[in-house]
């Protein structure tokens, strides 16, 4: 895991909370005063359509915001899996939403991990926190930031008028981490 610079692309459809995952990583990086750059690229639809964002986290100045290959791709639906799976660096991680993507074809030379985030979120009682489930999975796989660092960012973002959502989002992060810990035992 190259700790000097991490490139992550998160993709899905409008309304899945794709942008929030990326922005939280950027906020966490800023808190730990690393260099970071987040940028979105989305279609016109606020719901449905395509939405993806990329975030670079680095110890030194960041040049190009755009990168050919990512260290990690997080794909939340099938179209984004198909589009971004080829963009994972050799030895990188492809983390995907198993609720919407069932046994997809897996590129060579990278770790491909599925997490049924919608199902987990529904079981937790709020389908909207599915994005935090995969955030938890990502943290467990990369240890890029501690859970506390991400929870601190979460509290900042869910400040004005959304405090009641903090606990369920934290539960979702924990559920994502547990899923990795549980399944890693079997898969590796």
């Amino acid at each position, binding site marked *: 895991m190259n700790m000097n610079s991490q490139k992550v692309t998160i993709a899905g459809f409008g309304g899945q909370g794709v942008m929030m995952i990326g922005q939280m990583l950027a906020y966490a990086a800023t808190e730990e005063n690393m260099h970071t750059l987040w940028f979105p690229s989305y279609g016109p639809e606020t*719901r449905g359509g395509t939405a993806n964002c990329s975030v670079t986290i680095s110890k030194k100045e960041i040049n190009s915001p755009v990168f050919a290959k990512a260290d990690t791709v997080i794909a939340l639906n099938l179209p984004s899996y198909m589009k971004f799976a080829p963009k994972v660096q050799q030895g990188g991680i492809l983390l995907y939403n198993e609720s919407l993507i069932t046994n997809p074809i897996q590129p060579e030379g990278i770790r491909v991990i599925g997490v049924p985030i919608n199902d987990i979120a529904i079981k937790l009682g709020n389908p909207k926190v599915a994005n935090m489930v995969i955030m938890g999975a990502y943290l467990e796989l990369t240890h890029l930031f501690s859970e506390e660092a991400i929870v601190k960012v979460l509290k900042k973002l869910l400040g004005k008028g959304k405090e009641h959502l903090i606990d369920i989002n934290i539960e979702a992060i924990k559920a994502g981490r547990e899923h990795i810990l549980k399944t890693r035992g079997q898969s590796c």
Partner: protein
Amino acid sequence: MNQIVYKKTKGLTDTELSYCPGCTHGIIHKLIGEILEELNVIDRSIGVASVGCSVFSYYYFNCDMQQAAHGRSCAVATGIKRSRPDSIVFTYQGDGDLGSIGIAEAIHAANRGENITVILANNAIYGMTGGQMAPTTLIGQKTTTSQAGRSEALHGLPMKISEIFAQIPKAAYVERVSLHNPQHVLKAKKALKKAFTYQMEKKGFTMIEFISTCPVNWGMTPNEALKWAKESMIEYFPLGVYKDSGDEHE
């Protein structure tokens, strides 16, 4: 033997609508498609898509379409209708497209009595650009450019578009309708059909204003949005026929 009571109209293509769940744009699209089919003019119509969430409506209506610059649909429609007078021409515009940047083009199309049908989806907000204040945003309504709620002192009063257009002598038919329950959807369809019929009878400019919803930018569920539209919007924007030149001739 079962009789089909309701099925998708041939006036719409098979392309899935890109609108958010529960957005009334979809309902208005269906009514237009059904009317084009019932009046048997699908292959005689030319629609003009504006700029806003409905910018991609040219993928959805099963007839020739042109996509106009923001606010210019009525001008584009004038150019089309004057060149193809036998075609049925309609514009599909939001309250920002027609009431804000396109108000001059719309008023002058009406003033000339252009024989076109203007469909106005009034959801009191800019949808595609992310929820900014529109000319029809209600007093007190919070949007991303009126975050403390629209105030009369700073932003003036919501624009009563049907009432304004009813003042224009050459406007032949202007009605404001709603979609907040099946009965009102059917009533709205009747109004829109009358507008298209007036166009076919060359009676001049017709406009139907649909009280519409924007669940995502209003921050409500689709059903809550319809309820809010019924209770808050209709109170300020009363439904009804504001101009019917048919009355004068009969």
